[in-house]
């Protein structure tokens, strides 16, 4: 009887997880309550060392639609121009385990909003915060940090890299 109980609980949990994965949230606040003013400021950061990871969880990482929006924006806002499809080029690669400025969601968010020395521009004000979090979620999916049922599949273009859903997890080294 007890086993049945666990099975039921497990099943319901699975269903609830799928609920979150499948939400289409068109309009709503970003994950943390007050991120319009970023925590990072230029004098705190330096290459090679990450901020202490912030405990802001990016709920978008549970949501397949948000991640796929992040992927679309990553292409359309021309992140590919420097980072290519994660392999890096002008900018550092995003699909490996090395994170110069930290691989936690908050770090990536700050990197996009504030910009970083040596070329990463600041997108403060230009990208709405919800979209920044979407891009953040997608960037983390490139190194396999998201659940496989959330991470995007291949896109309708040349297959130059593995789709995010089949990327081996690369937990941040720093």
């Amino acid at each position, binding site marked *: 009887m007890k086993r049945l109980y666990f099975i039921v609980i497990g099943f319901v949990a699975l269903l609830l997880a799928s609920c979150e994965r499948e939400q*289409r949230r*068109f309009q709503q606040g970003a994950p943390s309550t007050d991120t319009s003013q970023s925590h990072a400021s230029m004098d705190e950061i330096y290459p090679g060392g990450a901020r202490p990871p912030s405990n802001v969880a990016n709920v978008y990482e549970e949501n397949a639609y948000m991640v796929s929006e992040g992927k*679309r924006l990553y292409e*359309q*806002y021309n992140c590919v121009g420097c980072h290519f499809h994660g392999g890096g080029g002008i900018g550092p690669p995003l699909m490996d385990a090395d994170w110069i400025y930290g691989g936690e969601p908050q770090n990536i968010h700050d990197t996009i909003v504030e910009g970083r020395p040596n070329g990463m521009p600041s997108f403060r*004000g*230009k*990208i*709405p915060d919800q979209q920044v979090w979407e891009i953040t979620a997608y960037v983390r999916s490139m190194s396999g940090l998201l659940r496989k049922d959330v991470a995007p599949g291949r896109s*309708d273009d040349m297959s130059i890299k593995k789709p995010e859903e089949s990327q081996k997890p690369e937990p941040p080294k720093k």
Partner: protein
Amino acid sequence: MKHSAFSNLGSFLLGGNHSVTSPASPQAHQINGIWWLMFWVCGAAFVLTMLSMAGAIWRRRKAIEVDHARDSRRAAFVALASGIVVVVLFVFLVASAVGMKKTEYIETRNALTIQIIGHQWWWEIIYNDPVPSQIVTTANEIHVPVGKPVLILTSSRDVIHSFWAPNLNGKRDLIPGYQTAFWIQADHPGVYRGQCAEFCGHQHAHMGFEVIADPAGKYEQWKAAQILPAKEPEDDVKRHGREVFLSHPCVMCHTIRGTDAGSRVGPDLTHLASRGTIAAGTLKNTTGNLAGWIMNSQSIKPGNHMPSMSLQPDDLQALLAYLGSLQ
């Protein structure tokens, strides 16, 4: 009086500037003709079938016994009726072939060529020209000269859409990986509405466009105006509006020729104020609607790719003033 009631009913059931049965082009006329031919023939067939069913019910429900005797006569009737059906179908087939020939051959002699690219959920419209500075890019509003064939090249950047302006011609799917061509030609000046006809996601319902047929002179005027880059703002408010545009998310997606904004993600806004509608034929292009659209696009077209903005009232007013000046 009676006549007007009848025509009211007619326009209630069939009419409008977005209707198959109000043709405004040679192709649509042709199709409309075939439609009415079929309507009357099929209508007659329907009535005859129903009459013979009613006759059977009327005659045979009181019948005393089963009638096998006249089965051979019935066989002759079935054969004859089937023969007539075959002939009628053949007539339809010929009508179809003739109609197809008239609607589908591609008129290229002195045709105007327009490239139409489908996006989720708006239409990018490009008037190509060998000279790059003469290329006109606009969105959701197609201007064509009256009486001149217009060759339309279609393609899609994301999913399948379908281009359909019923008063002018049948629809044509925009399929990624394919480019197809067909042509339209407007007989009279007017505004003909069109809409995406292939399911394309969240905002399939709000993916309209307008075809505006103008006399040749007016069309040339329009085109000449569209080629120009955006007007320089002439006062401080509008200059501030331009600043707002360039420092906010707007610049990430839209182009305004003559400024630093050059992204092709969303519609080209260089001559936004010259257009009749915004949000792909969803709203009339008024200042109020534009303000609502900028601040709350996600509640007007939930799921579309333009995020709702949060702007200070001053900034919004300035932005509206600037956009309103982009004639």
